[in-house]
């Protein structure tokens, strides 16, 4: 908006100036909208204000530029002026409606729709057309009819007096004309004859009359049967040598190429085909060899001859000769080939069965007569595997009982049961032989057949039950044999692996234990009777089944175990002494400890109570007596401790490396039992150790050791080299990384390191008075050698002062 076209501006300004001048000079009535527009223009909007402002002076004058609101518009005159300036033609102002016809090129005037094709009109016109057409055709027909003359018309035209006579006359005339025509033809023919045309024509006609008489004497090399009526076969002359004589034997023979090929093929096949070959079977058909033969081919040969391989060739030749027939003049009738109907009749006749049947008709019987039975029986004759003399004995029926049971079991399952009871180990034939009261062979066989059929039916079901009784018997036998050492199940003995293991352990030192037991028994006589009695009483009270040990294999230990078990379950009179004893002996001593106790080594150290116990063990008591500590001093206490297992002492059976072997080794050495009181909260939460929180030590421990609360250690981590040198942090890290990665530094680095180490060594070994390289010392030595108090470092004298091997 700001930019004003320069050209326009100037023109506009000039225009405006002109307008101003004009307006000032003359004051014609401005166009009606002008005054209103000027007032409106003064009330200018913001957007066009600048425009308006640019021409404030113009606004005072007649405002030709109308602007209603924001709209700028010119009047018609102004527009025309503008247009004239621009080079456009003026506005077309018309008061009335303009005529459209004046503008030919305008689209609105030229636009004229073509009228739509009216279907009715089209139909109407079509109908009219049709009618006119029809009318014309009719007219034509009528005209034609009028022109035509019928039979009666002629007569009508002429006299009606003698129509017959006139007709006769006319017909005669026709005849005369015909005769005339014939004559003319004859004359023409004569004319032709003069020119020898007719003869040629006749010759052609005559020659075409080629009859079968001409073929008389020719031989046909195929049999006459092959040529059927109504079929055209092309025959050609057979090849013949040029110099062959023209005898009757070598007369001209006619052959059909296809037939020759077929015959040759048949020949080859007949010669080649084996009787059992597939081709033979396929092609021979029901007729057999006869189907392969050619019809009239009959070899009257008498067996293999000298030149047997040429027989086929010769035979073929002769056959073909026989087959050939000679054409006679006239009609040679082919032998009447059998019609299709005749062929069919022949086939049917061959396959037919005479319906005469047996001369006598018998009444059909339900049962076989004796003769028929014999016939049927004759069919099979089996060899007997077992001599018929073997008779059925009572012993054979023994297994039958089991089998019957088995079969009954099967019956329950719903399977079929044999009528003949099965006996194990016998074949079918034997079975049937043995079945009593079977005299008739036929019935035997019948049963055999039934047996087999049934077996096929229940193959699986039958085998197993037959085997079962055998198996069971065997098992029972085995059991009876081997059941010597094992106690029966009804006796109430329980075996478990631990007991067995312990049994095996006990075997080793059974002898020792037996000895110990004997000795203990001897000593038991001196023992306190009251204690033993009391013990025994309690033991006896607890001992319910004393006589369980049939074999005496059960060890004291297991008896002890059993006693404990039994004691748990039974009511007991609590003897305070025995109760105390039992309490103290809650912990079951291990087998080894028991044995240790009873071992020969510890005999001397055994307590009296031990001996009692051993003696009681002999009677069946293993429970220990609490040793009386007032008798022995520390030794007894130690003994007790050892017995209880608190001490690991050498002697006797040593513990294995991983603790005591067996089950005892897995038991806890020290068992602490907390008597938890779940009802008392104070007891629960009162004395809680740090370790007992959340699963015992380590879980959620907040506090460090109470003893070590004020402990502040002075940690000094020192790392040393392989040589023992103390490494600084960097070297230590290097060392660590080398060890970690498995490879050290390279050559140069190691040299550098070694050099550094050496320097360090030198530094360490440096004297306080000297440099690490010992320069002062060397200098002193050099001075001594030179005998001077100085060393020349440079110059002529320096070269001489250097050692021999060193050059400057």
């Amino acid at each position: 908006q700001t930019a004003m076209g320069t050209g326009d501006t100037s023109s506009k300004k000039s225009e405006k100036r002109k307008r101003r001048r004009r307006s000032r000079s003359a004051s014609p009535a401005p166009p009606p909208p002008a005054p209103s527009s000027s007032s409106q223009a003064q009330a200018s909007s913001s957007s066009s204000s600048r425009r308006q402002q640019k021409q404030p002076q113009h606004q005072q004058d007649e405002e030709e530029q109308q602007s209603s609101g924001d709209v700028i518009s010119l009047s018609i005159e102004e527009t025309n002026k503008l247009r004239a300036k621009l080079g456009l033609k003026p506005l077309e102002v018309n008061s009335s409606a303009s005529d459209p016809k004046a503008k030919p090129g305008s689209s609105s005037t030229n636009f004229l729709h073509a009228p739509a094709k009216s279907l009715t009109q089209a139909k109407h016109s079509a109908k009219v057309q049709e009618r006119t057409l029809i009318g014309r055709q009719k007219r034509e027909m009528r005209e034609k009819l009028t022109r035509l003359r019928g039979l009666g018309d002629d007569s009508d035209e002429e006299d009606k007096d003698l129509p017959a006579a006139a007709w006769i006359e006319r017909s005669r005339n026709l005849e005369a004309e015909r005769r005339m025509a014939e004559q003319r033809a004859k004359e023409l023919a004569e004319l032709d004859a003069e020119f020898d045309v007719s003869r040629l024509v006749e010759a052609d006609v005559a020659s075409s009359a080629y009859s079968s008489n001409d073929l008389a004497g020719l031989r046909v090399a195929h049999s006459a049967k092959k040529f059927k009526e109504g079929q055209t076969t092309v025959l050609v002359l057979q090849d013949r040598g040029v110099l062959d004589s023209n005898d009757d034997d070598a007369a001209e023979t006619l052959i059909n190429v296809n037939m020759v090929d077929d015959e040759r093929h048949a020949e080859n096949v007949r010669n080649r085909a084996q009787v059992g070959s597939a081709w033979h079977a396929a092609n021979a058909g029901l007729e057999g060899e006869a189907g392969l033969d050619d019809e009239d081919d009959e070899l009257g040969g008498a067996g293999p001859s000298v030149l047997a391989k040429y027989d086929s060739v010769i035979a073929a030749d002769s056959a073909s000769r026989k087959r050939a027939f000679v054409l006679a003049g006239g009609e040679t009738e082919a032998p009447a080939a059998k019609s299709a109907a005749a062929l069919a009749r022949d086939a049917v006749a061959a396959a037919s069965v005479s319906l005469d049947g047996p001369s006598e008709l018998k009444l059909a019987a339900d049962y076989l007569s004796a003769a028929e039975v014999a016939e049927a029986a004759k069919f099979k004759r089996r060899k007997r595997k077992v001599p018929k003399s073997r008779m059925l004995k009572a012993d054979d029926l023994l297994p039958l009982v089991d089998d019957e049971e088995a079969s009954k079991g099967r019956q329950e399952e719903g399977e079929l049961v044999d009528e003949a009871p099965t006996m194990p180990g016998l074949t079918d034939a034997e079975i049937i032989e043995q079945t009593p009261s079977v005299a008739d062979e036929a019935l035997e066989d019948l049963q055999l057949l039934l047996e087999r059929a049934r077996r096929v039916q229940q193959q699986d079901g039958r085998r197993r039950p037959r085997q079962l009784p055998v198996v069971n018997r065997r098992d029972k036998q085995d059991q009876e044999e081997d059941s010597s050492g094992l106690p029966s199940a009804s006796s109430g003995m329980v075996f478990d692996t631990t007991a067995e293991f312990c049994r095996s352990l006990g075997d080793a030192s059974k002898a020792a234990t037996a000895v110990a037991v004997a000795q203990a028994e001897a000593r038991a006589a001196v023992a306190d009777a009251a204690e033993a009695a009391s013990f025994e009483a309690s033991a006896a009270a607890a001992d319910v089944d004393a006589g369980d040990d049939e074999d005496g294999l059960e060890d004291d230990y297991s008896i002890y175990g059993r006693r404990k078990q039994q004691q748990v379950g039974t009511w007991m009179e609590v003897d305070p002494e025995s109760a105390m004893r039992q309490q103290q002996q809650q912990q079951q001593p291990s087998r080894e400890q028991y044995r240790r106790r009873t071992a020969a080594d510890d005999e001397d150290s055994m307590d009296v109570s031990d001996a009692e116990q051993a003696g009681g063990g002999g009677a069946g008591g293993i429970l220990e007596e609490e040793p009386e500590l007032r008798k022995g001093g520390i030794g007894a206490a130690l003994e007790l401790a050892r017995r209880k297992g608190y001490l690991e002492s050498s002697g006797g059976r040593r513990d294995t490396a991983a603790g005591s072997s067996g089950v005892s080794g897995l038991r806890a050495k020290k068992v602490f039992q907390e008597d938890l009181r779940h009802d008392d909260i104070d007891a629960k939460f009162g004395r809680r150790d740090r370790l007992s929180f959340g699963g015992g030590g380590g879980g959620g421990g907040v506090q460090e050791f109470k003893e070590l609360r004020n402990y502040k250690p002075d940690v000094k981590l020192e790392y040393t080299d392989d040589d023992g040198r103390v490494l600084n942090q960097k070297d230590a890290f290097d060392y660590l990384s080398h060890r970690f990665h498995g490879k050290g530094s390279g050559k140069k680095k190691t040299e550098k390191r070694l050099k550094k180490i050496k320097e360090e060594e030198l530094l360490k070994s440096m004297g306080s008075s000297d440099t690490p390289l010992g320069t002062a010392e060397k200098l002193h030595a050099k001075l001594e050698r030179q005998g001077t108090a100085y060393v020349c470092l440079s110059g002529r004298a320096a070269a001489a002062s250097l050692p021999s091997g060193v050059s400057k």
Partner: protein
Amino acid sequence: QPQPAMIEITVNDRLGKKVRIKCNPSDTIGDLKKLIAAQTGTRWDKIVLKKWYTIFKDHISLEDYEIHDGMNLELYYQ
């Protein structure tokens, strides 16, 4: 339909410039643009007349564009 002799078109620039132009239907768009330029003060070749996205070409007449009396055109600047 009879062709009016003179038509008046309103050309609106959305920025506040609204011009009413009187012209013949046979005038071309270029002529119209010249008239607009004379009234608005811009260069006529800088003006683009549009109706939505249809840009009116200079060489085609108003009646061919079927611009009738009283129609509004949009004024844009190139």
